[in-house]
């Protein structure tokens, strides 16, 4: 059974990596793969069902949906990527600092606890309310919201590492605190960080599409998966394809990222490896 589970999860992981790879490549190569340009409108072909000419159909302005999902991938992946990047850049150093300097720890973690206790989509909506709707503000909002996630995970790992003997030896031979943090603590938390990056990237994609769906994120005519779903919403019975394909893109991306995150976590956690397989 255990053997089977291992094989099975490996196959899943491979499949997930292929799916993510395909989506990323599709988004990057959109200008070359896409049959039309993102804003090209076919006035005579509005809300046309999938056909040879438009393999995923067209939207209410006669734009080719396959093309727009590809270009939408560029925007959705970029917004999610930059958001997670923001939270990574601020969250990881905060977490390491908190683990290394005890006085910072208490104050910082209290503040982050308060931020964290608030649901992230709501917090992002409120931040967007303050900054005003728009793509860049959506990135900032999601980025700020996710800082505690990185800081907390990093801190909980780093606190253990800091107490290890080799850190004490490093300190005693005069390695600077910065050197210890970068060279000794860094590699030890890398695995956990990969899991966090993968899982948070997944939720960031949902957060971006939720904001854009509400009209608070990426603004039309820019194609983003969430904004496309919002536009397709009004025609869902006339032209279900306008709602199905952008949503499918979100779903597959998030699913694949979750599978990858889960798989890496299981590999890393020896306790789970035996118990849950």
């Amino acid at each position: 059974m255990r053997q089977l589970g291992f094989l099975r999860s490996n196959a899943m992981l491979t499949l997930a990596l292929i799916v993510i790879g395909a989506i990323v490549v599709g988004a990057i190569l959109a200008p070359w793969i896409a049959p039309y340009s993102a804003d090209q409108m076919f006035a005579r072909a509005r809300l046309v069902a999938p056909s040879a000419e438009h393999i995923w159909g067209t939207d209410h302005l006669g734009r080719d949906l396959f093309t727009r999902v590809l270009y939408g991938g560029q925007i959705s992946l970029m917004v999610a990527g930059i958001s997670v990047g923001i939270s990574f850049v601020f969250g990881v150093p905060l977490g390491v600092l908190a683990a290394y300097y005890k006085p910072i720890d208490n104050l910082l973690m209290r503040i982050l606890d308060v931020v964290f206790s608030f649901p992230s989509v709501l917090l992002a909506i409120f931040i967007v309310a303050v900054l005003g709707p728009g793509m860049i503000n959506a990135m900032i909002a999601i980025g700020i919201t996710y800082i505690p996630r990185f800081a907390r995970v990093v801190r909980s790992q780093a606190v253990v590492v800091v107490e290890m003997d080799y850190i004490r030896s490093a300190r005693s031979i005069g390695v600077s605190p910065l050197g210890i943090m970068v060279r000794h603590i860094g590699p030890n938390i890398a695995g956990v960080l990969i899991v966090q990056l993968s899982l948070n990237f997944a939720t960031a994609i949902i957060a971006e599409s939720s904001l854009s769906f509400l009209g608070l994120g990426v603004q039309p005519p820019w194609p983003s998966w969430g904004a496309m779903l919002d536009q397709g919403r009004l025609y869902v019975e006339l032209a279900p394809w306008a709602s199905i394909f952008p949503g499918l893109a979100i779903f597959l991306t998030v699913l694949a990222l979750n599978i990858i995150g889960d798989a890496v976590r299981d590999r890393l956690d020896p306790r789970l490896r035996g118990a849950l397989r």
Partner: protein
Amino acid sequence: MLVVSLIVFSAVRLIPGDAVDIMFQAEAGSSEQRDVLRQRLGLDRPWYVQYGSWLGGILTGNFGASLRTGMDVGGEIFRAFPVTLELVMLGTIIGSALGIVLGIVAATNRGRWLDWLIQPVGLVGLSIPNFWLGSLMLLAAGLYFPQLHVVGFVPFSEDPLRNLSVMILPSLALGLTLGSAVMRMTRTSVLEVMSQDFVRTARAKGMLEPSVLWRHILRNSLIPVITVITIQIGVLIGGSIVLERVFALPGLGRLLVTAIGERDYPMVQGITLLITFIFVMINLLTDILYRVLDPRVKLG
């Protein structure tokens, strides 16, 4: 709560552009006209005077008037709140029930086909954006159950059946995400407790399997599950804001999104304050619930 109110108030003031400018966008009014309107709405007063009068109003139950429509903010919120509350409550009930039951089934059948069946469903449920799921449900309902009333909200007090038939799809969409998270947590937690010594002891002394499950395993594995549920309630409130848009429900979410677009300060402030308040209350209730479930937990 006072700190929260000040943060909410000042944050909302930071929104670039004000309601007056937005209102005048269509018909370009002169700057004198704008000033007159600002004066009438009280937007020309310094921020601390505005804050003082807003806070004073709230303490007496008055949330102020909407800058946009002139309607009473408290009244608007009061009308919209039950819709969101019903949605979140139904979603929580569906999600928790589904998640706990499936989680137990998956854990007690670990490695067998039921487990293999339930686990991927949980992963899919976590990954599917619930507003997309909502759209698909609307589509499916339109195709296969055209006689069902799925749009056009009616208050529960007016027509309970009609109300439930409108609310069932969004609640399901909302509950599925929660259910998946709860299922995964329940499964892990039950498995962990099952491997503990006291469970083996209970079995060894000849206790029947169902009572081992109820008295020993469930009771000990529910705490992390409840943590997940309470954390997820916040996520559900966020989700309901989005789902209200899909199903055209006149709830808090719709009110909030419109108010943000129109820079309607009192409205945004009122809704934000209410949601924050609910949130603080939920956290408090969770702490109390822990105490009830686990006598070892002391309230700090």
